[in-house]
């Protein structure tokens, strides 16, 4: 088994689910054996219930999809009471994903989840393109200082491993990644979706109710690989890579570019067995190539 370690926590393999594309695993557990996954990263949870954006929330794009869900979720307490218990039944890591409107929200979320022993790690989502924040127009992770503040606040309030999840849309991703590292983050998770939009020429309306949304799927993989490679070279903490993974080979490409772990997102909708197949495929590749662990492939690009 290709075990990995992030922030002192062991994962049985490098394959995780991407937040928001797997709910908390209940539905997909009818297709895959959750015990075969490195971790289930749950849908991002906010302090209070959020209704999400108005429909349509989904559109097809060439080799990609566009979404503007808007972090619809039932809030922190519902998550703890109703969602987390399900995952106790499985021998995999449970990662909670959190998002707030300000640093205080993140503090509260981290503090409360730190008490939940079902939660093994926390992913700090600072990069949802479908939510407008009060104080500034951009996404939190598009700003170095905000990223540092949020990660520091979360760090102070939990001793579980924390991943900073960031947006690809910045001039220099390494600045943001380093802010996460400086703040005591245990991993950098990227990429979140790329801000994008689509329009219908006939109706002259945007395809999404929210006008703009986030792009994901195979089309974004080349962008994600480049950013993973950049971050890998810039920080010492592990990188969790994602964006367009549709098969084990894609996942291995991320590892080759420096990722310690990967997350599978949009691919779940296309192939509901994809997470498990990816985990198996990685194991097979490592065996066939006599690789003893993820470090044997990670960042080992011949250049």
């Amino acid at each position: 088994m290709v075990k990995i370690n992030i922030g002192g926590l062991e994962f049985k393999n490098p394959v995780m689910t991407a937040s928001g594309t797997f709910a908390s695993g209940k539905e997909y557990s009818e297709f895959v054996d959750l015990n075969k996954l490195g971790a289930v990263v749950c849908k991002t949870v906010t302090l209070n219930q959020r209704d999400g954006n108005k429909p349509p929330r989904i559109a097809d794009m060439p080799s990609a999809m566009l979404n503007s869900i808007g972090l619809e979720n039932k809030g922190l307490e519902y998550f703890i009471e109703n969602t987390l218990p399900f995952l106790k039944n499985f021998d995999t890591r449970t990662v909670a994903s959190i998002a707030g409107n300000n640093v205080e929200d993140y503090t509260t979320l981290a503090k409360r989840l730190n008490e939940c022993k079902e939660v093994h790690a926390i992913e700090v989502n600072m990069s949802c393109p479908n939510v407008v924040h009060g104080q500034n127009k951009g996404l939190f992770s598009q700003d170095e200082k905000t990223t540092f503040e949020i990660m520091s606040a979360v760090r102070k309030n939990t001793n579980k491993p924390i991943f900073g999840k960031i947006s690809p849309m910045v001039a220099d991703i390494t600045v943001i990644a380093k802010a996460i590292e400086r703040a005591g983050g245990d991993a950098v998770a990227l990429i979140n979706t790329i801000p994008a939009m689509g329009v219908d020429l006939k109706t002259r309306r945007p395809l999404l109710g929210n006008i703009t949304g986030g792009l994901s799927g195979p089309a974004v993989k080349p962008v994600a690989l480049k950013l993973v490679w950049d971050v890998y070279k810039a920080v010492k903490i592990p990188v969790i890579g994602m964006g367009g993974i549709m098969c084990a080979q894609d996942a291995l490409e991320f590892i080759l570019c420096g990722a310690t772990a990967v997350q599978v997102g949009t691919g779940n909708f296309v192939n509901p067995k994809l997470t498990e197949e990816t985990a198996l495929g990685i194991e097979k590749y490592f065996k066939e190539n006599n690789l003893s662990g993820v470090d044997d492939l990670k960042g080992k690009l011949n250049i």
Partner: protein
Amino acid sequence: MKQIKAEVINISEVKPGIFNILMKAPYIAKNAKAGQFVEVLCNNGAAKNCTGGPLLRRPFGVHNAKGENIEILFKVLGKGTEYLSQKKAGDILDVIGPLGNGFDIKEGRLAVIAGGGMGIAPLLFAAKQTKNPLIFLGARNEAELPCKEKFENLGKLILTTDDGSLGEKCFLNIPLERVLKENKNAVIYACGPHPMLKCLADLGVKYGVEVQVSLEEKMACGIGVCQGCPVELKNKDTKYKLVCKDGPVFNAEDVVW
């Protein structure tokens, strides 16, 4: 619900641009309820290399389920349906189903089936599961009303078209309202364009008759994961419910029209 490799047994173009696929899917055939749907992969399993069709699956109502087989009936609108229309007998489709809640068939009540345009697709299966239904099928014109003959022996058939090329020249709510006036214990099972469903919802309120509507929304996962397919409902704990999981069939009263 399961992910199935379903062999195409037969594909036919029943009207120009409207196709019927009969496929072998024993699990779905056995477990599907009327009003449920399937999600069909419309690319060559190679979403990665994008060889053929769109990335996301496409939802289609279960048109019929018999023995080991199910049927879907669809109109070619874009690249997903175009991809499917080119399949041949013997090809294998990647299908997830059965999905959604389906109609809540009320036995002992007068069943009124109301289908507009391609909305008739899931209603054949519904008509088969009701006794002596009254079946209202409407479309813009004859060419847009496929498969009416399949309904003929299932109950009383009332046809309407916008241009009068088949049946009465009107919307189907006109003859349907005449029936409601005399049958307060009717239940309407409806699928079709949004304005038609809204109109039926209003009739339901006016005559105190239960109306079950099958709604549509763009979908990604089809199983309640992605939150991509919301429908706004009245007086609920959350603003939105999901078409794919809580629906596609909703009580017309609950929907914010």
